[in-house]
């Protein structure tokens, strides 16, 4: 019998994840200006310095920023234990990380060694603090094993990608290490660890919990919950030794995940119109499209000696763009639409345990983030994604993509600010009511 004892499972104060969330669109807005002012040359290759700034703005500035904030809340909800000293850890890591990513993007654009070193120092400290706190939780024996195993693997991949990233930055400032002899393969491992190992596995692990929880869907099959994340992680490690053989398996494992997503979504009990579900469906469709594109013969791509009348853009650029924009970004935006109003509501709701009459001050959950406004974001996301594909085919369209990107993420920022303002105004009302 487990009569309640001491617990460390309270949600961290809401302003902590909020500051990660609200910082994220700022980086993509910066990316929109970067795309606009870089012109056509940005799209020549993935090795363009400004392209490196752009990809890190998306992956570190937006995706990782949101995932770091979300993990702060997910650990106590899913595992039952949150990080220790959340205010100190979140404030220090967020501040260092925010400035570190900005310095990193600038260091790619203006190529100054002092900026690169600044970015290395800030990111090292910021991420060490954050990862240390998360590992402190994850090494404990906590509930909901399948997701937690996924979190652990994602964090290991995160550490690997950071170490490789720091080695690559060290190389830029003239500190050459023997491992750099592997050349571009190191960059490929770094990218795969980030996109598939860190972001991909974390999304897989989170999906095991959030789909049944928010959408009352059936649990994912036990085999998938137990083996999918470890399989993807193992394949990511194998990529270090044999890239060509492993990549097809990574794509296939994601096609399996996409199929399971469709199955679970189809069999959910609450079949109400929901923007997050639309995002999950878009993400799953993108994974299947990625498989088709990956297994398409090379003669369909422009970087080969093909004589076909219409050719697809550079294969690695196209696949990476779809994976980041239509898969990772879609899931993250869909999650934001779900957790921003939920967290706001649930934090206020928990205050009513002592005084139930305070419930009268809490508006309906949809007032925190209007469904129609969420749907507008979804359509903006599709439009800007399509303009990204267009700019890969015809780089002259870069200004259109920049504009779409700007509109989409300014809109997301507005939705976030409105949600947070409503939360804080209701919180003040409850405080006043308690004081009277």
């Amino acid at each position: 019998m487990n009569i309640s004892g001491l617990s460390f499972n309270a949600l961290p104060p809401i302003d902590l994840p909020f500051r990660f969330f609200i910082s994220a669109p700022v980086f993509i807005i910066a990316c929109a200006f970067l795309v606009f002012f870089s012109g056509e040359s940005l799209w020549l290759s993935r090795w363009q310095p400004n392209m490196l700034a752009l990809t890190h703005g998306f992956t570190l500035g937006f995706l990782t920023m949101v995932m770091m904030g979300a993990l702060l809340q997910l650990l106590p909800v899913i595992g039952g234990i949150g990080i220790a000293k959340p205010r100190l850890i979140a404030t220090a890591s967020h501040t260092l990380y925010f400035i570190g990513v900005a310095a990193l993007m600038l260091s790619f654009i203006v190529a100054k060694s002092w900026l690169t070193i600044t970015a290395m120092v800030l990111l090292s400290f910021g991420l060490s603090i954050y990862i240390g706190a998360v590992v402190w939780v994850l090494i404990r024996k906590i509930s909901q094993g399948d997701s937690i195993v996924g979190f652990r693997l994602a964090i290991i991949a995160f550490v690997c990608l950071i170490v490789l990233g720091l080695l690559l930055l060290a190389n830029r400032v003239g500190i050459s290490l023997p491992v750099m002899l592997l050349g571009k393969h190191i960059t490929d491992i770094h990218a795969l660890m980030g996109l598939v190992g860190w972001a991909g596995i974390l999304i897989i692990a989170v999906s095991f919990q959030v789909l049944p929880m928010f959408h009352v869907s059936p649990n994912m099959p036990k085999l998938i919950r137990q083996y999918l994340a470890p399989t993807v992680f193992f394949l990511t490690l194998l990529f270090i030794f044999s890239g060509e053989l492993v990549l097809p398996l990574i794509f296939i494992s994601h096609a399996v995940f996409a199929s399971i997503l469709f199955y679970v979504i189809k069999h959910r009990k609450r079949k109400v119109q929901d923007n997050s579900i639309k995002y999950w469906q878009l993400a799953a469709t993108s994974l299947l499209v990625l498989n088709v594109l990956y297994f398409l013969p090379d003669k369909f791509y422009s970087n080969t000696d093909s004589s076909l009348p219409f050719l697809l853009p550079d294969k690695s650029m196209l696949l990476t763009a779809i994976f980041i924009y239509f898969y990772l970004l879609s899931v993250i935006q869909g999650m934001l639409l779900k957790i921003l109003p939920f967290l706001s509501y649930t934090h206020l709701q928990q205050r009513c345990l002592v005084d139930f009459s305070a419930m009268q001050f809490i508006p309906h959950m949809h007032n925190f983030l209007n469904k129609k406004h969420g749907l507008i974001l979804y359509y903006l996301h599709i439009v800007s994604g399509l303009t990204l594909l267009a700019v890969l085919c015809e780089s002259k369209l870069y200004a259109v993509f920049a504009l779409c990107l700007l509109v989409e993420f300014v809109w997301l920022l507005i939705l976030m600010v409105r949600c947070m303002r409503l939360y804080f105004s209701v919180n003040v009302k409850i405080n006043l009511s308690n004081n009277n």
Partner: protein
Amino acid sequence: MELIRVDVKQLAPPEPMTVILSALAQLTEEECLLVRHRRQPFPLYEKLQQAGFMYHCEVHSDDNISLYIYRQDDQKLFEHVFNNNIIQSKARN
């Protein structure tokens, strides 16, 4: 001790919490709330203690738990009736 039952298994957040809070607002002395849920509401636990409640959770499977919530003053009574399986059931809507 009387048992008040609520089943929130088919509800999506934040409805389970709304149902639990409403039931707790009406919970009188010598009553115990039994919540049937798909998952443990971990963040609620610490708040329950701060608000003067105790809880006991039984995990039946991956998506099936029973959570008993009662007032701290009733702890001995709860342990007595729970261990001797003499809780009376009462439905409340």
